[in-house]
């Protein structure tokens, strides 16, 4: 009993989120939709408190809880901090939008907190069952969020599409998990690792692993399981899209990394080619499909597919450097994505949001600061030096080269030039084209603040020695926890 109580101390952030979400729900039911604003604020504070708790209770050596199903270590903490921050920003950023669309319902922040709770479990999952629980907890919340604008046909379509395809992928994942369990005789990652290294690459295990990878690839929208992303990104309410593109991606990627590196380190030769193939397919689809997009949310969907491809290069390396590269990449990716979506949410004319890339025309003239922010973020998304996005690419390439996969780095590098084209197109539309009517100004200070903060983080803060150094050290410590 005392053991369980001790164990709980390492799960304080999760406990806080779960209990807090329920408390907020009860409060919301009690006070109705007029309490949406205070509940949003409370949810942000709750996430901030969970973030601080995660920072301070991190066990030095890592600790296994609940019979090994839940692992609290530096790796999980790294992911959780970003997840909580992304969740908090998602709530902050949605304020103006929800008010404009008359969607100010108290369920919204509660759902986001519940989703972050699920993601938090994903980051710590150390067992096939807790892995599935984490995924389902966050997915169910996300399905509802996608359809949150329930009177909008696009939004409900997005929610339904996401739900059906998500259920399919969960099915594949479960099927894979059951096969793995059947061959390993345990759901614990450590136990699976022991069996896998003893029995080698068993056919049943491999089939199970491939299904598991398919399910996980769906969750991070990596090709060939990416089809849902553009439609859901486009259809979902924009602040929800911002959330989809940030927190679940890092949670999914953290789970992806742990679910391959912890139980299957000895059969890396079996899964490495699969991951490399997924990485290349994602980068290619991200690069080529984005070229023809006219809707900026769809563009960002393909962009995120491509970025998942780059992050997966680090996983394909499968080394400590590789894992830390994935974490660095994802951290920078989340900052860029939140900043970009804050800008997309600022594309507001006569009270309505616009989503066309052509609406950005001449932005650098009509709204200089916003033009500068988008320029910094897009050059960073393209991975051009002087921005932090370049560091992400550098570390995954170094990891690939270290793992004797120079070819993968070359493929990634060449595709990055192709994808640079469509990022560049957005920049040139903003700088070179004749101005479109200006966007409304000063309607949403929280969005402006978020966008500016992200841009300043990307350049120059995360480029300067002490800050990027600190990020690298944190990522290295996090990666070391898995090895």
């Amino acid at each position, binding site marked *: 009993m005392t053991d369980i109580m001790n164990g709980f101390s390492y799960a304080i952030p999760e406990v806080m989120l779960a209990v807090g979400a329920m408390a907020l729900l009860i409060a919301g039911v009690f006070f109705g939709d007029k309490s949406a604003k205070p509940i949003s604020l409370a949810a942000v504070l709750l996430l901030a408190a969970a973030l601080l708790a995660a920072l301070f209770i991190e066990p030095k050596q890592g600790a296994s809880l609940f019979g090994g199903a839940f692992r609290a270590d530096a790796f999980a903490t790294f992911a959780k901090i970003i997840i909580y921050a992304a969740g908090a920003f998602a709530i902050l950023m949605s304020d103006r939008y929800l008010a404009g669309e008359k969607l100010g319902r108290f369920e919204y922040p509660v759902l986001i907190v519940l989703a972050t709770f699920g993601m938090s479990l994903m980051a710590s999952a150390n067992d096939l069952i807790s892995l599935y629980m984490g995924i389902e907890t966050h997915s169910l919340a996300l399905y509802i969020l996608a359809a949150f604008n329930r009177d909008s046909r696009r939004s409900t379509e997005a929610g339904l599409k996401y739900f059906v395809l998500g259920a399919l992928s969960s099915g594949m994942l479960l099927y894979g998990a059951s096969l793995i369990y059947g061959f390993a005789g345990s759901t614990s990652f450590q136990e699976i690792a022991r069996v896998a290294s003893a029995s080698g690459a068993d056919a049943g295990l491999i089939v199970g692993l491939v299904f598991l990878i398919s399910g996980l690839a769906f969750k991070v929208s990596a090709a060939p399981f990416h089809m849902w992303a553009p439609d859901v990104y486009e259809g979902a309410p924009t602040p929800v899209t911002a959330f989809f593109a940030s927190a679940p991606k890092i949670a999914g990627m953290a789970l992806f990394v742990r679910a391959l590196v912890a139980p299957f380190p000895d059969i890396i030769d079996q899964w490495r080619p699969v991951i490399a193939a997924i990485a290349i397919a994602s980068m290619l689809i991200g690069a080529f499909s984005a070229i023809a997009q006219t809707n900026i949310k769809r563009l960002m969907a393909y962009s995120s597919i491509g970025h998942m491809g780059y992050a997966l290069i680090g996983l394909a390396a499968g080394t400590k450097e590789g894992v830390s590269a994935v974490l660095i990449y994802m951290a920078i990716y989340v900052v860029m994505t939140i900043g970009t979506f804050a800008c997309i949410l600022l594309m507001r004319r006569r009270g309505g949001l616009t989503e066309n890339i052509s609406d950005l025309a001449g932005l650098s003239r009509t709204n*200089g600061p916003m033009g500068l922010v988008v320029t910094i973020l897009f050059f960073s998304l393209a991975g*051009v030096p002087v921005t932090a996005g370049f560091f992400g690419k550098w570390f995954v390439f170094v990891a690939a080269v270290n793992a004797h996969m120079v070819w993968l780095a070359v493929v990634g590098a060449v595709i990055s030039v192709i994808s640079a084209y469509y990022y560049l197109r957005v920049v040139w539309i903003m700088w070179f084209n004749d101005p479109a009517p200006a966007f409304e100004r000063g309607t949403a200070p929280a969005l402006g603040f978020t966008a500016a903060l992200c841009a300043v983080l990307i350049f120059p803060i995360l480029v300067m020695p002490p800050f990027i150094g600190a990020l690298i050290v944190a990522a290295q410590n996090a990666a070391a926890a898995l090895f």
Partner: protein
Amino acid sequence: MTAAATGFSWLSAITFLPLLGALLIGLARLGANPDENGVLEPKEQQRIDNTARQVALLFTLLVFGVSVWIFFALYDPAQPGFQLIEQIEWLGGGVSYKMGVDGISILFVLLTTFVMPICILASWKSINKRVGDYMIAFLVMETLILGVFCALDLFLFYFFFEGSLIPMFLIIGVWGSAGTKEFAGFTMPSRVYAAVKFFLYTLLGSVLLLVAMAWIYFKAGTTDIPTLQQFAFPAHAQTWLWLAFFASFAVKVPMWPVHTWLPDAHVQAPTAGSVVLASILLKMGGYGFLRFSLPMFPIASAEFAPLIFALSIMAIIYTSLVALAQEDMKKLIAYSSVAHMGLVTMGIFTATPQGVEGALFQMLSHGFISGALFLCVGVLYDRMHTREIAAFGGLVHRMPFYAFLFLFFTMGNVGLPGVSGFVGEFLTLAGAFKYNTWIAFFATTGVILSAAYALRLYRKVMYGELTKTNLMAIPDVDQRELVMLGVLMAFALYLGVNPSPALSVFAPASDHLIQNYNAALTAFAGGAQ
């Protein structure tokens, strides 16, 4: 390795000073009250534009002053190694922020700081829209270029090298000239086409360098340039690494056949953009060959030297012939730049003292002369808004001062003795003769061709009867233009008559380089036997 004894990071100071200027220009706009479309009152706009111009000029002059002071007071030209070194931990694990200069880079630093105020002056009147953004772009570019020449860490070098694409991309695309271009079924403004081509072309060349850099980091455990220059890469690896570096620098120089972005970029860029491109940005490619290819991969450099010579000779002869057929003045000078840079790459890979020093000198001199030629075209463009050779003729009657200056730089371009262009050409050719007579023979024909296209340009634009009515009232160069061109002329003339000050700065570093290069080749040959 000598540590920085000066105590103050002078190189970082001059590198980041322009950025401070850019920040100030940005801040100057904060007080303004634009309407909802971001447009200011004309008077207020004027005031802010003037502030931007003045701040930009002030900062570039300040940087120039400080860099000259560094050169005379702190820099020791006798020493072959790196000086004024400063180092800060950056990414950890062997990648650091490390700056320093040697005989190869210090004069490029000075060239950059010298050309930049001229660029600001050249844009004083001709740039009227979005002046603040323009000046910010130039100041940011100065920071990035100085970073390239001062970086003593390969990663840092790449960081600045690639970063310099961003401001140049914007300069070409925003302030480029009018006109449209058909491309792949789309009609787009040709400045956009040129800007995107410039960006993607250079980026494609450079990403392979990025992967090579990752590999080097993996093998050597560091990206510290002085360490890497001592690191003996295995011969088979050198081949691939050399090719990856070559892809990047060849596009930047640019060498035939990857030069096609340059004429487009030059034609579309505003005058000052062309000047920066020709005077400084192209030099980053040659600098890269000297800083990395030759010292780090000597075996591969020797192996691939014939390839370089073949491409250089193609560049010298073929692009000179192409220049002969141009109807656009800027395009003509752009092609002549490719030809002149062909001499540079040829000189570098002869790996003889004459060749390398000649290449360095040629780059320096080309920085003055081609920059000045683009300014000369800019003078005409500002007045007539065309660059067509056919639109001019007989200008000597109306613009005597201009005719004199233009003639001087045309002669410099041809390589007339007494002008700095001659020294560079002569030394590179001498180096080539040492290496192989035929190479030198073909390269020399290029010199003759350069006289042909340069003199054709001069004759068509300046001589003949002044028949075109719109040219009757064309004014001669004003004071501002006289200052810009006069200063450049003074330097080209001084270095042409007395090249030894520059050569004596180059010599220790280039001798050191060639010594190590030959030692590495001897060691390899010894090992192979």
